[in-house]
């Protein structure tokens, strides 16, 4: 087997190739084309041996197989499609300048659009039909006039320079522009006109007239293009024949000068002709009004939108200002209220503390200053009260409140005393007082 040796490297695989079994199918091969192998050469004969494989193919197989195969030969030129009228057939070949070369070859519906291939095929059809040797052989008259017309047409249409000169003056390919008053679909009226005029453009592609869906940019580009049309059209085909004898040099020069002037004049006229066509098209082009109207509407719509927006903004700002003012007021009020509350609370706390202090003092009084019988002597009273007063100063308002609440309703002297002692111990434990500060209550 034949192995081609290459120096190429293959693709490196990703580290974790995700497919099982080392093989992964993504697609089928594309549908094949059925073609005829040429039954020639040793490799074909080997192929035939394999394919036949002791089988015998029939006539039916032949038909089936042959139908499958793609044909590479063109179909034969077929019948001449355009009728040849008597006027055309009796043309004088000497008058070739006025001859419609496309009509002579039977391709007048193609004209400048005819491809080289079409021209060749058309010519061949005509030669097969009109060759003078054939006419003579068939006993006809030996008239080769139309054949000469055919050959002339061929000479001109297959020479790129000559064909262009002829196409330049081939007005049969023009599409007449509609009159300004023409009614109907302007796109149907104008597209063919510009498609035909476009054949003279040096620049390709040539923008089309378009339709009612064309954008403003398209339309502007169209008119821009056509008002600056760059035409290759020339008019030497219409030149008067220049005498080619050397005798009459002045005459020759005169004709040449005349031709030159005529060409220039025709060119100017053609430019003017096209400009008028474009002017007319522009005048009839309803799209321009449509675009203007659309633009105006758009502008208006924009203005309305803009005003609405402005109004909305003003209102929004006003609303916001009001809102802000309201919020500020509320905040101030709240602040005031909370300040008053704090003062009241403070006062209440102060009153409560006063009351509580009184409760503590009253407790000591109720317990007869912890003196067992009879009225307590003044030194006892003074010492007890001094301790109570000390305790009061050591307690904050809340602790005071706790002690006061515990004292509430107590009448028994020991109970009262133990509450007060607890209070003292609490503040000693807290470190705000020392035991030694108290004269009597802790004894």
């Amino acid at each position, binding site marked *: 087997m034949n192995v081609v040796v290459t120096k190429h490297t*293959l693709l490196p695989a990703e580290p974790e190739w995700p497919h099982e079994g080392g093989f992964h199918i993504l697609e089928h091969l594309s549908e094949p084309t059925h073609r005829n192998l040429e039954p020639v050469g040793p490799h074909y004969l080997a192929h035939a041996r394999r394919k036949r494989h002791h089988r015998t193919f029939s006539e039916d197989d032949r038909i089936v197989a042959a139908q499958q195969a793609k044909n590479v030969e063109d179909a034969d030129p077929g019948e001449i499609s355009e009728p040849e009228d008597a006027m055309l057939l009796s043309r004088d070949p000497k008058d070739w300048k006025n001859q419609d070369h496309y009509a002579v070859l039977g391709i007048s519906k193609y004209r400048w659009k005819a491809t080289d291939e079409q021209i060749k095929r058309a010519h061949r059809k005509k030669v097969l039909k009109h060759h003078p040797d054939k006419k003579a052989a068939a006993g006809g008259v030996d008239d080769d006039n139309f054949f000469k017309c055919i050959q002339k047409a061929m000479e001109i249409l297959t020479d790129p320079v000559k064909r262009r000169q002829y196409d330049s003056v081939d007005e049969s390919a023009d599409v007449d522009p509609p009159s300004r008053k023409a009614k109907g679909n302007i796109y149907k009226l104008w597209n063919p006109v510009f498609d035909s005029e476009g054949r003279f453009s040096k620049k390709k592609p040539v923008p089309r007239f378009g339709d009612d869906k064309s954008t403003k940019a398209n339309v502007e580009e169209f008119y821009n293009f056509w008002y600056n049309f760059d035409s290759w059209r020339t008019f030497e085909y219409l030149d008067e024949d220049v005498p080619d004898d050397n005798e009459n040099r002045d005459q020759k020069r005169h004709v040449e000068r005349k031709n030159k002037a005529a060409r220039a004049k025709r060119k100017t006229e053609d430019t003017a002709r096209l400009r008028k066509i474009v002017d007319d098209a522009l005048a009839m082009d309803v799209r321009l009004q449509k675009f203007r109207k659309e633009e105006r509407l758009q502008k208006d719509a924009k203005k309305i939108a803009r005003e609405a927006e402005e109004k909305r903004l003003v209102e929004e700002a006003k609303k916001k200002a009001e809102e802000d003012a309201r919020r500020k007021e509320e905040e101030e009020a709240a602040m005031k209220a909370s300040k008053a509350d704090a003062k009241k609370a403070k006062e209440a706390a102060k009153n409560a503390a006063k009351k509580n202090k009184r409760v503590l003092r009253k407790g000591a009084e109720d317990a007869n200053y912890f003196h067992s019988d009879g009225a307590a002597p003044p030194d006892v009273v003074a010492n007890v009260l001094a301790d109570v007063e000390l305790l009061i100063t050591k307690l904050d308002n809340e602790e005071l409140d706790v002690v006061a609440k515990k004292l509430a309703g107590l009448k028994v002297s020991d109970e009262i005393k133990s509450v007060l002692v607890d209070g003292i111990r609490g503040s000693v434990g807290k470190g705000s007082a020392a035991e030694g500060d108290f004269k009597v209550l802790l004894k």
Partner: protein
Amino acid sequence: MSDSEEPQQKTVIGIAFGNSNSSIAFTSPDGKAEVIANEEGDRQIPSALSYVGDEEYHGAQAKSHLIRNPKNTIAYFRDFLGKSFADIDPTNAHSSAHPIQHETGVAFLVEEKTDAEPSTLTVSEITTRHIKRLQESASDFLGKKIDGCVITVPTDFSEAQRRLLAEASKASGLEVLQVIQEPVASLLAYTAREETSHPADKTVLVLDIGGTRTDAAVIASRGGMFTLLATQHDYELGGRQFDDALVDHFSKEFIKKHKTDPRENERSLAKLRLECEATKKTLSLSTSAQISIESLAGGFDFHSTVNRLRFDLLSKKLVDQIVGLVESVVKKAGMDLSDINEVILAGGSSHTPKIASRIQQLFPSTTAVQAPATNPNALNPSELSARGAAIQASLIAEFEAEDIEQSTHPAVTVTPHLAKPIGVVIHSPEGDEGKAEDKVYVFLDAETAVPARRTATFVGTNVGGDVLIRVVEAKKESVDVTPPKEVKEKAADEDDEDDDDDDEEEEEEKVIKRVTEVEKVIAEALLKDVKKGQKVEVMLNVAGDLTLTITARVVGGKGGIRGTVPGRAQ
């Protein structure tokens, strides 16, 4: 089929049958095809018969009678075979016997015998007589009776025309083993010359510029088998038009001197034409040539010279047309000029140096142009068809008629061909511009008949590791690689207000590169643990039902991977 015990080997020849010339060739025992000269030493034998007195002249002698005896000289008749009178173009036979309508076909009216009424010779009859003379020349040369032949015809010959040709040959006593296509025969002549038994895949354009017509064909050559992809013909372009360019040139010169137009007298024209053809042929070898005709017209002799440069100028329009034909056939094949790997110039007019050089200019330098002017090893373009026919004749010499009929049966010839090139993605860490780049290595090109198989080895990896064989269908694309215009210029343009129109006129030459790109991935196969530098062999096999089998292995290693992608129909 061929059996070594068979004592008598058959003697078979190849015949190229043209409107202008015919050639005969045989294959020597060592397998080389050779063109045979007739008794007069001609290898290009004019396809002409002339009747003078009671004699029949053939070949070059008959052609020379175009001057004195045009009415009884029959030439340029091949394309009339099997055609109705309405369908023939009689232009080329204008200076010889004119074709006439006869029953449903075409015939010539000639005075065959001095004392008899003129006879009507049908094109088939003339063909029979012509082949009889060719056969006699071959038989004389080889010293053997000829048992059979292969004849070439242009690709536009219909089935009916081929059948008539075989019958006409048989009537002369020469059996036609097979009628084959001229461009294919030319390609076979070149392919058979290659030493290898595995001809490289390529797409070939055969351009046959004969005497009266020019034919172009694009042929896919895949694994030594040939498929016509497109053909195009110009029936009004050939060596005759090149002759006429010289005829017009010398006529003008003659008119200047003698005030007589030699083209207006049939005999003068015939003389001038014949001499111009000889002058033209000389110009293919040397850069100038002389022409010398006694009593050309009005009793005046004519002597002149012409150089190749002048001739090239005179025939420029014709060469333009040839170039146009080539462009059009390539387009018809759906291809780009750079897709053509080789151009084979065939037919006598392909000796013309200017034609060969214009064709070489038209194609990229990678396209080989086989013509004497562009390749000293090229085969003689006038001999290609006959050689190819002789090679084919030797291949099927021992086949039974039934065998040949079955081997050329459409059920065997009509074959599915790949729509797209199939290949494997190759990786180059440093591509054209130093960037890593993945390309497609094509195994089986588009238009390969299936079943088909191709194998190639690769350097698996330059670093070592797992390797991925990504099998793809590819597409050929034209990419514009025109170097960008100078930026400065562009910036300046933009400052221009409105008319930047005129700079479009100076059109830039575009540089187009043809690249093969992945169109779709068909399958991937993983080959594990390939060591750095190890060779990997990959085989792609496409079966007749488009089933694709991929096989890959490390050369010298064990195992490998194999996977199958079923055809769409399954």
